């Protein structure tokens, strides 16, 4: 791979580490809020920080677009400070959680596995047709890679030479399903062979290695040379989601070996060696992240929501029947489902 990007400056390294720490802090806080019943089911990022932050650091937030699965948004701050606000709304179950700020090039969170992959390819195709400069970068998991959507989209991207980067986060698990039951392929990167473009495996625990590989993929895409599949190899250090109990299926020794390779710890140690990170910095960054997270929660909880909001964006002009239904909802005022439970939040 050519060196498509200048080597990271000290500031770059600090920025990457800062975002990784923030991602972990956001995620842990949201995890706890779920435990308190204040937000819905969430998927902690532990173990994926370097992969996501490293990849995002190679992209240009002004021209490039990110198509996330569900685990990445806490780590996408580089694409806009407001990302965490939107993501918090999403976890609250607020419809505004699907709309990142208009200047943030991030597609809504996708929960239907791999469904975002064809979107990214279509979007990249559209950028090309409109003569716009960016690329589309799409995150999806080792599990999601088994869906037809991934293969169909990759195959199309190959034919079109679309400016898209496939960011396959191999964290070794899809809920309880290990990669050994997910595929017999020698690597996930190898799946690119089926679509006729390069596939590269990179240590997803090393954000700078990720950054380089993704930068090279971006350079290819921008040069009109087509897509690249990047397999970001890491390990899921937490439960799948707040609803999951990984002790049922994750071998304890495997997990503890992986914990020793926690990207936050290993990259942190590297920066400390370089004199770029310290306990003080760490404490400050964590405190700032926590404050930002609290702000996001406050903002989210204060965000208005009409009782009839679900009619707002189905069609531009509601149908006659929708209009009547809306009137019924409004007339009804505050009828609750079966009276047995209120909102999850609070």
């Amino acid at each position, binding site marked *: 791979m050519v060196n498509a990007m200048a080597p990271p400056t000290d500031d770059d390294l600090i920025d990457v580490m800062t975002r990784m720490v923030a991602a972990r802090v956001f995620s842990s806080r949201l995890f706890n809020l779920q435990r308190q019943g204040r937000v819905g089911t969430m998927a902690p990022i532990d173990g994926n920080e370097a992969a996501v932050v490293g990849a995002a650091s190679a992209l240009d937030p002004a021209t490039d677009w990110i198509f996330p699965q569900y685990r990445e948004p806490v780590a996408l701050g580089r694409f806009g400070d407001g990302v965490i606000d939107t993501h918090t709304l999403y976890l609250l179950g607020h419809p*505004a959680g699907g709309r990142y700020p208009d200047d943030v090039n991030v597609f809504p969170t996708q929960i239907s596995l791999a469904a975002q992959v064809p979107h990214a390819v279509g979007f990249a195709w559209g950028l090309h047709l409109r003569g716009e400069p960016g690329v589309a970068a799409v995150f999806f998991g080792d599990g999601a890679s088994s869906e037809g*959507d991934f293969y169909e989209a990759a195959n199309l991207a190959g034919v079109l030479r679309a400016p898209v980067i496939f960011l396959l986060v191999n964290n070794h698990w899809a809920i309880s399903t290990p990669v050994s039951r997910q595929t017999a392929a020698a690597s996930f990167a190898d799946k690119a062979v089926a679509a006729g473009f390069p596939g590269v495996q990179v240590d997803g625990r090393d954000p700078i290695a990720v950054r380089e590989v993704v930068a090279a993929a971006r350079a290819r895409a921008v040069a009109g040379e087509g897509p690249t599949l990047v397999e970001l190899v890491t390990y899921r250090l937490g439960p799948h989601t707040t609803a999951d109990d990984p002790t049922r299926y994750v071998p304890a020794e495997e997990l503890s070996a992986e914990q020793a390779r926690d990207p936050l710890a290993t990259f942190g140690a590297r920066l400390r060696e370089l004199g770029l990170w310290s306990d003080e910095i760490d404490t400050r960054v964590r405190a700032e992240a926590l404050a930002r997270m609290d702000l996001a929660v406050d903002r989210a909880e204060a965000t208005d929501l009409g009782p009839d909001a679900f009619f707002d964006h189905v*069609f531009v002009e509601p*149908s006659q029947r929708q209009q009547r239904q809306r009137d019924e909802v409004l007339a009804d005022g505050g009828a609750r489902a079966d009276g047995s439970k209120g909102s999850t939040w609070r």
Partner: protein
Amino acid sequence: MTMLDAINRTLAQEMARDERVIVFGQDVAANGGVFRATEGLQARFGVDRVVDMPLAEGVILGASVGLAAAGMVPVAEIQFLGFVYQAMHQLAGQVTRLRYRSNGRFDAPITIRSPFGGGVRTPELHSDSLEGQLANVAGLKVVLPSSASDAAGLLATAIRDPDPVLFLEPLRGYRTLRDEVPDGDHTVPFGQLRHVRDGDDVVIVTWSYMVEVSRRAAEVLAEEGLSVGVVDLRTLVPLDLAGLAAAVGHTGRVVVVEEAAQTGGFGGEIVATVVEECFYDLEAPPVRVSGWDVPYPVGLLEDRYVPSVERIAAACRRVLAVAP
């Protein structure tokens, strides 16, 4: 002109009108589509705007979502409606939710054209009428022209519409339905049914090619001295509630005709709506004429599956035999 020509002409007009319109699907380019609906478009508008896709319906609709978000106006073709099942996750889970999921950030001006319906001896899955299943997918407009003129006008409306539209073209009608299509900028609004034939005794409510079969049944009955109206719903979503109530209110008797299997078909929705809108106008229980509760059959059996002039006429007589 034929419905097929009307569709072809409208596609060309809309591509000329709006350069964001892009047509893609299987065999739509050099081949002009397996029915020639896209004939000549690639030669006229170029390889970037008329595109043959790899053989995968999922990514045809999946890519539409991205194209739309990037500012294009996708007009996708599914070669036969039965194969939209391969893309159901993208249609029902994604295309129809782009605006909703993004809380209004992204428009989804996506038109999906697809031929369907029986009567031409296709292999299986080519003739299935899935509009009832698809009309339950919130966020999807379901449009089914029954004439060349409506095909042109509704397709223009579909392509210009900011929401996802499933535009269903009756296989049997492509070359057999012929009528005059207005020149110039001809559009037909969604949600306004069409009175195909006036009648005072009973009204047949239907859509797509069944409009033609029902019209013939009405003619047969006219010879028996019965006055039978025929109403073409044109769009199932949005549904013309007021128009439907007025049409049924006028006769007090209604026969609903569709090609799909009875159970769970859209005919049930129409009867339920009629009952909700004008129960007290009814002089007899509404009757449904539909396909049977079996998968669309092989060629030798289809004439006994698709509602026929005889079955529709018999249903009208039955409804008329009921004392008010």
